[in-house]
């Protein structure tokens, strides 16, 4: 029996005539931190939405904990998985406590019970946002909003977190703080797939990096191996200088070199790295 909590097989997705994703095959074991990277328009957000059941694929099959997502009820998916969207669409002037309470309540009656309120306050403490609890969400800074949204997503203790660029628009300190929180949770069994643009942060925090380009998985492997792969330069259309510091590979875009030639693509001599 498979121990993979997320499995996608032969996924194809399109919008009208445009092919968004093609032949996606993916298996993610429990407790893994996966960084989904790729240039803009590569299909990262679409893949995340497919995995969260928000949109459906044209063909192929996605299973969560062994169940086909197409046959799961919204409540079943919700109990298993939390999705953090790219942009907050919060409409009303909710306070932080409102957002946490709404996420922690499981039915209409428990909304008014003390359980939801206490659960929200406990959770705020755990995520170090208790000082924000009475503030209106819209008055918070970008970093504070991101922390609140992540806390809200994790309040129901989901097995899977799918986050779409949660660290975008945050300063370095908040980026590190946010990703460390996710990393700590994966040690406790949370499976996280996080869309990221910063390859160094992806290398630093993720166990595995998947590079998506032109709607296909182009590179899939352990973070360190992917960061060393020359194919990475091709898919991001930029040369990276690779520096080594405390056993970490640091990628620095090289502005002076010419753009990588196509011939560099799909060449890997590392047996641990899957270059498609």
């Amino acid at each position, binding site marked *: 029996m498979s121990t993979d909590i997320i499995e996608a097989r032969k996924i194809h997705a399109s919008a009208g005539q445009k092919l968004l994703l093609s032949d996606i095959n993916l298996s993610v074991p429990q407790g893994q931190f996966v960084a989904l990277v790729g240039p803009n328009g590569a299909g990262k957000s679409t893949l995340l*939405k497919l995995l*969260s*059941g*928000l949109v459906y694929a044209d063909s192929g099959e996605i299973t969560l904990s062994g169940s086909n997502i197409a046959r799961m*009820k*919204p*409540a079943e*998916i*919700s*109990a298993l*998985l*939390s*999705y953090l*969207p790219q942009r*907050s*669409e*919060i*409409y*009303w*002037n*909710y*306070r932080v406590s*409102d*957002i946490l309470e*709404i*996420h922690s*309540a499981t*039915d*209409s009656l428990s*909304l*008014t019970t003390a359980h939801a309120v206490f659960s929200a306050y406990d959770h705020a403490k755990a995520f170090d946002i208790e000082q924000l609890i009475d503030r209106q969400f819209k008055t918070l800074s970008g970093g504070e909003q991101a922390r609140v949204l992540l806390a809200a997503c994790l309040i129901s203790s989901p097995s899977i977190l799918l986050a779409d660029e949660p660290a975008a628009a945050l300063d370095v300190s908040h980026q590190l703080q946010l990703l460390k929180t996710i990393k700590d949770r994966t040690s406790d069994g949370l499976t996280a797939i996080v869309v990221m643009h910063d390859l160094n942060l992806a290398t630093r925090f993720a166990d595995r990096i998947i590079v998506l380009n032109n709607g296909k998985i182009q590179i899939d492997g352990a973070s360190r191996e992917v960061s060393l792969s020359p194919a990475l330069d091709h898919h991001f259309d930029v040369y990276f200088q690779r520096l080594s510091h405390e056993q970490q590979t640091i990628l620095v875009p090289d502005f002076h070199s010419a753009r990588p030639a196509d011939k560099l693509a799909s060449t890997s001599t590392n047996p641990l790295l899957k270059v498609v």
Partner: protein
Amino acid sequence: MMSHYLRPALFVSHRHPAVMIAMAVVSCFVISAWLGSEILSPATMWHTLNNPDSVMRTLILQWRIPRVLTTFCVGACLGMAGVIFQGVFRNPLAEPHLLGSASGASVGAAIALMMPALFPGPFFLPIMAFAGAWLTTLLVVSLARVARVESGFGLILAGVAIAALLAAVRGLIMLTLSDDAVSLQVILSWTLGGIQTPTWQEFFLFMLLTIIGFILCLRLARGLDILGLGSDTARNMGLDVTRFMHRSVLIAAAVTALAVVWGGLIGFIGLVIPHMIRWWLGPRHHRLMIYSALASGAALMVFDGVARSIMPPAEIPLGLLTALLGAPFFLFILTKEARR
């Protein structure tokens, strides 16, 4: 932000809102019962009620009190419909009147009233009003969805356009079908907004329906809260968004129809009061629904009292009075939204 500076001016305290709203409802009830073509002071009213032979006592008990209570229920229905429409479309300008739902209900009711042979008995009136409100709301939402302007001013523009069309249809129905049996004057005054004076029996039926409507509306509160977090988040939290929206529109149309059957076309209450409650107590829908229902009922009782007492023995149509207050408020929200 507006909510910050309006709060202290409008409301003394955020504490004990239940006590404050209970006091407001009781005060508005007393004021409305006191007002009328003959304004009775509280002392006179007390003496009158204690005099079993007084004609005025019969008038108050059989006419004024049921009317005041009916007004409260009509206001509560409009407030609840406003909360649902604003919450489900995430549009602060949405309310039964501006969305065309109330006009749809009025056309349905007008058809039932003008064609008694086709729709005999009292039961067809609310059913036709409900069908009119529901179908109109679906039409407006579909038009806005096709034009991809569902959450903005486009929804309201579609509502206003359909409401204008339905007003013309209603006028044609009234002109072509009125006869000696159905007074045009009665229907015309009803379309301008005016509370029907029911018998106690009729009132109890209306109250029962309002309570059922209130329970159904309250059950939507959690869904509306979740929807306020965004459609994707709502779906991820297990809410079947499309189904929930259909159910919400159905329930909002039902309470709108109830309000229209008993109060005619009364605009802006469903817009103004939920906004004020949101500024006062925040946007959580459980609380918003309860307090908007109570405050809308209370406010409408006072408006009705004023409408009955300004030009005795004539009554000013209630819809005109609420529009006098509501239209400037609508413009205020409109400019605020345009700046966003």
